[in-house]
């Protein structure tokens, strides 16, 4: 693994730590200490890590990434946390695991040779074995684990996969016996002071512990991994089913297997008590009549929705907001989901606005995402990273509707907005969300905003303000009209205002209607 790659990882970790300080509003409960795994995002999901000195089961079907998770738990321990660990394998030969995971740049063999981790090989020997009657696998395995733990000074162990040993030796076991075995195994590991991550196949497989019901009753913790096919890629999720005596983030959490191991994207806890908007500080668009209509600008920390049909100038308006932010000496994050960054810069240049200078100064950061299978939670992390990195005061998302059409999960988009709003408020970051609304042509049922004329806006409770851009046909011409529908906690002009889009961008004219 190259030095650059390692550096990046460290930087990421530092950032995460920094972010954790913002997010971790909840304190660990129950007096159970947590052992940091070092797996990116996994510790956040577990609110600090695995319950120390306990056994946590990972239940997953084939191809769900459990071996990677287990190996990374050991790898990060050895390389980043100065904590040697044991990898006990019942199915795959250690050489095969080492070979397969070398793709991540993990030199597991080298680390094993250097005494920083240890593979316990419990796979079936080449010559096979003949089994008659009852056998005892607990005592010899625990003896071997003890020996390994003592010689290595290990504090963590991964076991992949425990179901296989039950399949091999306990084929006739009933639920009671299986539970007793697992309990004794977990207890033996606990006695050795080890924190264990133990995998098992999901119920449909023969090598599963589920059929004994042991997952529910015996283990201290249970995490399920799952995989679904997306349009352009697989969508992986994990879910903490339980974590006895400990806090954790509930609900399904998305994760990816990257070139560098697992990236888990847990939900960010929203601390509404921090959401404190300072109405005396206004973020201006730099369009004087609009800023005036807003009572001086967008109140700092507000989430503004700019809704309008295609071609009404949502991106142009957002660009004004970016340009003004940059010239006010602020940093800005532009989430470009609609068009490529190059196109955004080109459009800006056409208006005579030099955004490149801001980019070069590191004060304008672009965040992009693929147009298929956007992982909303991952995007959120990217936005937050960018905001923290450049100390942004303004964020533009162009547009939420692209996210909606690119994501498979509509509820996820709404959640994305809520989480972004929650995060932005804690930092006093002002956010402009562009939203394509088919107002003129009638709204699509699938869209978040149905008819803007009704009060039943699903987004209304999330956003603090709404600016509506519309076309109207009149006097054989198409007029563009701007309305400030809502601006929470602040007085604003309620008139319908005419505007034009031209070389200089968006310019606001007189009230519509009177002599219009």
């Amino acid at each position, binding site marked *: 693994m190259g030095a650059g790659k390692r550096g990046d990882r460290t930087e990421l970790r530092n950032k995460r730590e920094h972010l954790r300080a913002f997010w971790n509003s909840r304190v660990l409960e129950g007096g159970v200490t947590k052992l940091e795994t070092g797996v990116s995002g996994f510790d956040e999901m577990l609110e600090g890590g695995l319950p120390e000195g306990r056994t946590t089961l990972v239940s997953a079907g084939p191809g769900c990434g459990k071996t990677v998770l287990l190996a990374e738990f050991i790898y990060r321990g050895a390389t980043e946390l100065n904590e040697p660990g044991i990898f006990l394998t019942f199915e795959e030969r250690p050489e095969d695991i080492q070979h397969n995971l070398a793709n991540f740049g993990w030199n597991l063999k080298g680390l094993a040779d250097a005494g920083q981790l240890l593979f316990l090989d419990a796979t079936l020997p080449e010559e096979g074995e003949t089994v*008659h009657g009852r056998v005892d696998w607990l005592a010899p395995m625990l*003896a071997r684990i003890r020996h390994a733990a003592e010689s290595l000074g290990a504090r963590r162990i991964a076991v992949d996969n425990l179901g296989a040993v039950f399949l091999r030796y306990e084929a006739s076991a009933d639920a009671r016996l299986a539970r007793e075995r697992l309990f004794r195994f977990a207890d033996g590991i606990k006695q050795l002071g080890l924190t264990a991550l133990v995998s098992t196949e999901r119920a449909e497989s023969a090598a599963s512990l589920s059929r004994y019901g042991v997952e529910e009753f015996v283990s201290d913790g249970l995490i399920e991994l799952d995989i679904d096919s997306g349009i352009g890629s697989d969508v992986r999720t994990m879910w903490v089913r339980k974590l006895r005596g400990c806090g954790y983030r509930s609900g399904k959490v998305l994760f990816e297997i990257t070139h560098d191991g697992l990236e888990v994207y847990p939900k960010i806890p929203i601390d509404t008590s921090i959401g404190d908007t300072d109405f005396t500080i206004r973020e201006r668009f730099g369009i004087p009549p609009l800023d005036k209509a807003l009572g001086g600008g967008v109140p700092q920390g507000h989430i503004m929705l700019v809704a309008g049909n295609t071609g009404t100038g949502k991106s142009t308006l957002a660009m004004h907001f970016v340009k003004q932010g940059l010239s006010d000496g602020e940093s800005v994050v532009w989430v470009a989901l609609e068009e490529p960054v190059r196109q955004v810069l080109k459009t800006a240049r056409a208006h005579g606005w030099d955004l490149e200078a801001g980019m070069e100064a590191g004060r304008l950061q672009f965040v992009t995402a693929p147009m298929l299978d956007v992982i909303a939670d991952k995007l959120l992390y990217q936005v937050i990273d960018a905001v923290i990195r450049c100390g942004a005061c303004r964020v533009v998302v162009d547009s939420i509707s692209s996210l909606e059409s690119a994501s498979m999960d509509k509820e996820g988009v709404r959640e994305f907005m809520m989480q972004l709003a929650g995060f932005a408020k804690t930092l006093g970051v002002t956010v402009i969300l562009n939203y394509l609304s088919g107002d003129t042509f009638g709204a699509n049922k699938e869209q978040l905003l149905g008819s803007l004329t009704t009060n039943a806006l699903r987004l209304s409770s999330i956003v603090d303000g709404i600016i509506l851009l519309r076309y109207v046909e009149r006097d054989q011409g198409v007029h563009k009209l701007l309305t400030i529908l809502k601006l929470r906690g602040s007085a604003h002009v309620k008139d319908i205002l005419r505007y034009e889009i031209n070389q200089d961008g968006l310019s606001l004219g007189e009230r519509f209607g009177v002599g219009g």
Partner: protein
Amino acid sequence: MKKLLRLYVVGKTMSAAEALESIQSHLADPALENWELEVVDVLEQPQLAEEDRIIAVPALIRKLPPPMRRLVGDLTNREQLLLGLDILNREQETRE
């Protein structure tokens, strides 16, 4: 060539004693004449268990001469033991 069997047990348990007892009675069998027995307690010599990849006990391993063979569990049945260790194959057994 040396003929060596190795028996793995864990601790001084009842089942360890039973396994040892049944092997010793089998060693009196003419088919196992000249076979040596080595008893290993995993608790005392875990590194040997590591080398032989012992997962379950009692385990009886034919160490020498090759081919290596292993039997796990109930060791009381003479025929199962001799077949499992490849000391006597089925044909020989029927001829005798």
